[in-house]
């Protein structure tokens, strides 16, 4: 259909398109038809039904990203859960002393030590620990101390220091010395890794069971079970039996106790630290070992010295006085260790306390233990 316009028609159309023409007004009057109200209602109802009332009005952006965000959130939660579970697995041994006890008990059984009653499981684990780690050594009269010291060398400094700081029960000194030697030698790499791991577990168990104050006191818990007592009796070394016979004093015990079996680790330890079997006491070992750590770059010996000093700083005045009253030589050794570690104010403070407790203690005897520079300054 060919549709073309001419001049007057174009003008007529332009007038019409301008709006409000006579034709338009007339057409609008022809009808005012509108859809029935029922039809309106049904359409509006359908429109409202499509959008449920009360539903949150989401933006298009949120609608588009809703699913991806949900998936990402779920994945992040899963990842966080996995990480937390892994962390829990790593921390579990510290939070489960029972597991550590079981772990520490097994070598005792393997070494032939008699089984103990369940209620003395902790004490038994200490015995088994020493027996399993160093079968040729004598079982200590107070095995918990030697075990703790031995383990602390390879574990946390706080645990180690707590074990070393605890005054041993009477007669336990030689065993403590031997355990210290053993632990330092083990830390040098001679002890089997399994034995070290077992001692670590036992140490954790011990440390979570016994507070510092208890270790500092002379009332370390003894196994009450008869079987455990018999086991201890059988396992006691001549030195320990000598202790039980009433011999007190570290030096005397050290002299009377048979020298522990020398092995390569002990020899290396002696070479590195200068501590030998002829050393008179644990205090001497500590002081000598601490100074050796300062001279040499042995990380294990240095760690031992640092942990000892750290514990010394934590000791209250009353605790130090208790320690000094109980064992003057030990107290002087600790003072010397503090001084060597650079804690000069603390060392001077302790020395003043020591002198107040032992005014009759001669300077000559002090010089035998304490550094000369310290005595000059104080």
């Amino acid at each position, binding site marked *: 259909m060919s549709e073309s316009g001419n001049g007057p028609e*174009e003008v007529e159309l332009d007038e019409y398109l301008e709006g409000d023409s006579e034709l338009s007004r007339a057409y609008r009057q022809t009808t005012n038809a509108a859809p029935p109200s029922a039809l309106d209602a049904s359409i509006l109802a359908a429109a409202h039904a499509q959008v449920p009332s009360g539903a949150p009005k989401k933006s298009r952006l949120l609608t588009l990203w809703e699913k991806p965000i949900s998936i990402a959130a779920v994945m992040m939660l899963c990842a966080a859960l996995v990480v937390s579970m892994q962390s829990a697995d790593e921390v579990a041994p510290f939070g489960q002393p029972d597991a550590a006890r079981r772990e520490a008990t097994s070598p005792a059984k393997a070494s032939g030590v008699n089984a103990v009653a369940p209620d003395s499981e902790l004490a038994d684990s200490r015995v088994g620990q020493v027996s399993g780690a160093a079968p040729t050594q004598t079982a200590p009269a107070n095995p918990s101390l030697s075990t703790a010291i031995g383990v602390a060398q390879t574990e946390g400094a706080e645990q180690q220091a707590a074990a070393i700081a605890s005054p041993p029960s009477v007669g336990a000194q030689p065993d403590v010395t031997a355990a210290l030697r053993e632990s330092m030698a083990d830390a040098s790499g001679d002890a089997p890794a399994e034995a070290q791991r077992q001692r670590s577990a036992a140490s954790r168990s011990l440390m979570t069971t016994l507070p510092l104050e208890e270790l500092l006191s002379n009332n370390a818990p003894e196994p009450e079970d008869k079987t455990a007592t018999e086991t201890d009796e059988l396992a006691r070394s001549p030195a320990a039996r000598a202790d039980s016979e009433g011999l007190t004093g570290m030096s005397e015990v050290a002299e009377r106790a048979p020298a522990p079996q020398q092995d390569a680790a002990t020899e290396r330890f002696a070479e590195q630290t200068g501590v030998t079997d002829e050393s008179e006491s644990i205090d001497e070992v500590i002081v000598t070992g601490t100074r050796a750590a300062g001279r040499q770059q042995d990380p294990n010996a240095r760690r031992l010295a640092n942990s000892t000093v750290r514990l010394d700083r934590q000791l209250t005045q009353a605790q130090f006085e208790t320690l000094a009253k109980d064992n003057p030589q030990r107290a002087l050794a600790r003072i010397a260790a503090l001084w060597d570690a650079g804690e000069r104010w603390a060392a001077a403070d302790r020395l003043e306390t020591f002198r107040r407790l032992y005014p009759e203690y001669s300077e000559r005897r002090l010089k035998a233990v304490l550094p000369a520079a310290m005595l000059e300054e104080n």
Partner: protein
Amino acid sequence: MDAPESDERLMTRYRDGDDSAFDTLYERHRGGLYRFMLRQCGSRAVAEELYQDVWLSVIRVRASYTVSAKFTTWLYQMARNRIIDNHRRASIRPVSGAEVGSDAQSEPSAPDGEQPDRQAQSAQGLETLARLVDALPDEQREAFLLREEAGMSVQEIAECTGVNNQTAKSRLRYAVKKLRAGWSEHHE
């Protein structure tokens, strides 16, 4: 005074869940679309059926609505497609002017001051105009109705009907020429 919200904005709001926007949109286009379909269809019942179908289609596709064209063009395009489909199914005579004019007869009467013969003359003229619209060729009537009922420009009519601007303008020109000529004859 704020400008009225555009049809596209209202439809977007409805798509996003604001059903009150649809109420406004429907109120804007209900009369024009209904009359357009009533003129283009053969019967009121069919017009109402198709009219409802068009609006339900708008409701159904709301979630995927994007502003790609003017809403009026989109709405009347859907209406036009349904009318064409309906014509294909059955050849139905377009609704007569008398049927459409029944609504005009129900309108309020003229003011009392007007003369009865003038009222009758006016009513007769409107009826004549309605008949002239019905008598237009389908394409020309469609162009005229889109202009009058939807307020479309020539370009929008072209877009809606799928022809170029010149064709749409030509259809509209012929429609206006015939209507004016027929109405002038009636007045004379």
